[in-house]
């Protein structure tokens, strides 16, 4: 027993997809998914996506890195087992700079990458869209706009028709396995 996931519209150029997306959005559809082989400028605005908060993630992580590095170098060198090395102070900021910087960059990078994956809900090996046989061309030369059945304005016959009107090469309903 399978239920309807939504309707897929295929386009062959970023421009066509972009216009369709704008039009559909203008009609008030909200549960939309647009998939493209490469980033298409303006698509996120067209679909009304917010700006990515990743920058803040990275900043926080970098700060944590700085703190961790400084504490590590100060505590190990000046607190836990202070040893006289070359007559130098047990802790000083100057020699601590490189390690501090590196640790900041490291943690920031981790935050960025794993943050990105998390925000994108990846890894997610299964997705209803993958059920569609032609969908795999989306990583090649196809531009797909999907309207989910869960969208309040969705209509099993009119929505496909609408998309066809918007210049889709092909419009299909997609069943989702339960």
């Amino acid at each position: 027993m399978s239920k309807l996931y939504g309707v897929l519209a295929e386009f062959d150029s970023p421009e066509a997809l972009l216009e369709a997306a704008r039009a559909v959005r203008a009609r008030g559809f909200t549960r939309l998914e647009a998939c493209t082989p490469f980033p298409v400028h303006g698509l996120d605005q067209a679909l009304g996506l917010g700006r990515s908060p990743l920058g803040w993630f990275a900043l926080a992580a970098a700060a944590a890195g700085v703190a961790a590095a400084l504490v590590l170098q100060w505590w190990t060198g000046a607190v836990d087992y202070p040893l006289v090395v070359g007559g130098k102070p047990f802790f000083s900021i100057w020699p601590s700079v490189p390690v501090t910087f590196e640790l900041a960059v490291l943690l920031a990078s981790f935050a960025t990458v794993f943050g990105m994956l998390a925000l994108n809900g990846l890894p997610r090996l299964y997705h209803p869209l993958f059920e569609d046989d032609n969908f795999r061309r989306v990583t090649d030369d196809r531009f797909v706009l999907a309207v989910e059945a869960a969208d309040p304005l969705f209509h099993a016959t009119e929505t496909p028709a609408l998309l066809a009107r918007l210049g889709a090469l092909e419009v299909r309903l997609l069943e989702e396995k339960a």
Partner: protein
Amino acid sequence: MSLVQISDSPPMPLETGRRYWRSLEELAGTPEFRRWVEREFPKGASELLSSSSRRTLLRLMAASFGLAGLVACRRPEEKILPLSKGVEHYIPGKPLYYATAMNLAGSVTGLVVEAHDGRPTKVEGNPRHPESLGACSAFAQASVLSLYDPDRSRRVLRQGRSSSWEEFARFAADHFRAELLGRGSGLWLVAGSQPSPSYEAVRNHLLARFPEARWVEFEPVSREAVRRGAELAFNRRLETLYDFGKARVIVAFDADFLGVDSPGVRAIREFSRGRAVVSEKDSMSRLYVAESRFSITGAMADHRFRVRSSEMAGAVEALAGALGLMPAAAGNYLWAEAVARDLQAHRGASLVLAGPNQPPEVHALVHLINEALGNFGQTVSFVAAERAPGEASFEELASALAAGRVQTLIVLDANPVFTAPADFDFAANFARASTTIHLGLEADETGSAATWHLPQAHYLESWGDLRTWDGTVSIQQPLIHPLYDGRTPAELLALVSGYKDQRAYDIVRNYWTAQWPAQEAERRWRKALHDGLIEGTSAARLVPAVDRKRVLAAWRPQPPAAGLELVFYPSPSVWDGRFANNGWLQEAPEPMTKLTWDNAALMSPATAKKLGVRSGDVVLIEYEGRSAELPVWVLPGQTDDSIAAALGYGRTVCGRVGRRVGHNVYPLRTSRTAGFASGVSVRPAGRRYRLVSAQDHHAMEGRPLVREATLRYWREHPDFARHAVHVPELKSLYPEHQYTQGYQWGMAIDLNRCVGCNACILACQAENNIPIVGKREVARGREMHWLRVDRYFTGDEQAPEAVFQPVACMHCEKAPCENVCPVVATVHSPEGLNEMAYNRCVGTRYCSNNCPYKVRRFNFLDWHKGLEESQKLVFNPDVTVRMRGVMEKCTFCVQRIEEKKIQAKAEGRRQLRDGEILTACQQTCPAEAIVFGNINDPASRVSQIKKQNRNYLMLEELNVRPRTSYLARIRNPNPELV
């Protein structure tokens, strides 16, 4: 009698190495186990297993923890084997010190030897002994290694087949019957020089029993020429003694009295005391040296005249002439007049001497000069030296052998087959004697050719007594039971002559107690053992008169010899060859050339140019139809047309260390040319040979490393040493670390006293378990000496001066090595030591790269691989044996510092006494050039010395604040000659 007991009881290490895993009892130390160990620890467990005997398996465990994960049940089981019966005076783990004495070619040095759990590990000088005065030579320092040498002769050999002392005893009982030997004609004994009263008593007993037996004292390198010179001058046999301390002006003709002429150390100590200066107001002695070979004595000279040995007589004659002692023109020795005036100005406080390689006539003339200068009884004195009854010369022995008149030949502690003058063809004739008996430390060239070879006891295994040059007798007591069943020469003679006492202990004890009143005997004996010498044995000093006519009559003015001359000298490393199997000495750089593991034909740049050769070219040297090949080493300062070659190399029947090391020059040395041979022919052999010098570069490149000045200049510029380099005001980014609490260790090295004799290097090696690496690795620049003596040439290449500079870790207060170590394996102690924690080191070598003095040493390979058990016994248990892959360096002998601190605490003292701690190098330094102590105590000697105006820091401008400072060298040239 504790000392006896100890010496007779075998060495008993506290804990021994039977080891196995608790979970695998039955595997106990089996080969399988060892193989498993090798597998388990890729770094090669061999190095782990090759640490000092008592501390082995824990390393293994450390490794297994590090590598194979941590499982408690793999805890190894170690055994502790306590003595079954206690031993008096012996506390396990506490070293014991015994006084004894060492004899090298008749030169006797009194020693104090440190023993750990029955193993002698370190030799020091005996301060009470007149020849030692607390110092000792490189040879003495290295002698402990020879003791444990696994290549030493281990058993009695008969015709090269294994035999036993019992068998020899049976043979001797039969062979030395009066019926057989009669009055002993045909019995010859040839022995290395061993001035020992009890031994002589046994010898005389034997000679009395066999009146016609002949006794030959043979040393390839001896002072015989000096004695013969005295004989010529005084009509009697005398030993000549010099006092270099009293002498204000010294003139040495081919006399390397600081070096190989006197294997002892008294000369250096006296001389350096005569040179000691504190302030520019002080005066110091002046040294003139006329020599062919550039010796360390020449390096210390204020004036060095390059004179060929074969023309030395002319130089002496010129001086005598200048002194008006004989009608002789100064000739081309323009300096003679000035030197004569200087000598005249110091009558009774001057000293003229000639080297033992000069003929008796020269020595006689020198005696005449000294007498004329009123030096007799002042700087020159004499003691009687009597011959053995029936003493014959080696030459007589040689001819008797050749004539087949020798039936039985006993060779005691000598190796004539290798060292005999070439013209005697000794090796060939040796076999003509029907029975040859050889007693020696190794089954050497002679031992392997003899009918009987008998293992000799090492001096550290022997009871005996030894007389030093001034007559003082020391008791020689063993520190360890003979490892290889060796016996002393006295014991052998006692055996073959049926002397009343057979054991060395009885021989020496009874000899002396017989001399003393019975009730005194015991006390005196104990005192002698304790002090290391017998009171009242020093001989009377004689001041005979020179028979002037005889001397001048004997004088033959030498015409300047044509062609090249070849000068023979004993190697400062292997002496006459007897130390060839001693790795420490082989690797010790020869002081002037810095060559290791080799001898060479030393020649001046000009001579090399003339011969068309350069260092490393092999030359064929021919003399009287005999020839030898030698690699060339160009040594600036050698006299032109004079080639010097060290004896003792090229041993063929020798242990693994010394076999075929270097080139044998004995084939060129005849009975008449023992000192030098003139008119040798030299031509390139067209081969090259790799000579390895521990120092590749010999100029200071204009860098103020060793700072020196003339006495006059110093007086005009008292602070010259400090101002030799401009040190700008040095600012630090950081607050200075304050080293003001408690002890602050520091060192000062007086370059004006150091003569570059290598004793410190060997002392350091023995104290700190420093491995040797062999010629190949030295060539790679991987020698491990913590302390090295840098030698630089200054002045022009033809007649350069040389300076020595001992360099060890400077313990910089701002140590650059510490900053760069990623794992804090080298850090600073509160007492200002630059510490090296081997067990923390991962071996990045960054510290060594960043050390401006390059004093750090890295274990590039496992230098202890394949050590035999006996060789491990020499290790100092107070110092970790370093494993492969870690850095090491001088620690200022921190083990000695800690020991003394613990001792002081135990005695309830809060403060150590100044001078209580001696570093190994300082303790043995014959020149007293090294002073160590607490620089935080303004009263300490080192602080006082560092206050002197000659005090300077090497590379001070780097602002690393070294704790070791140097005192600038002062030369005292004759104003007339500059």
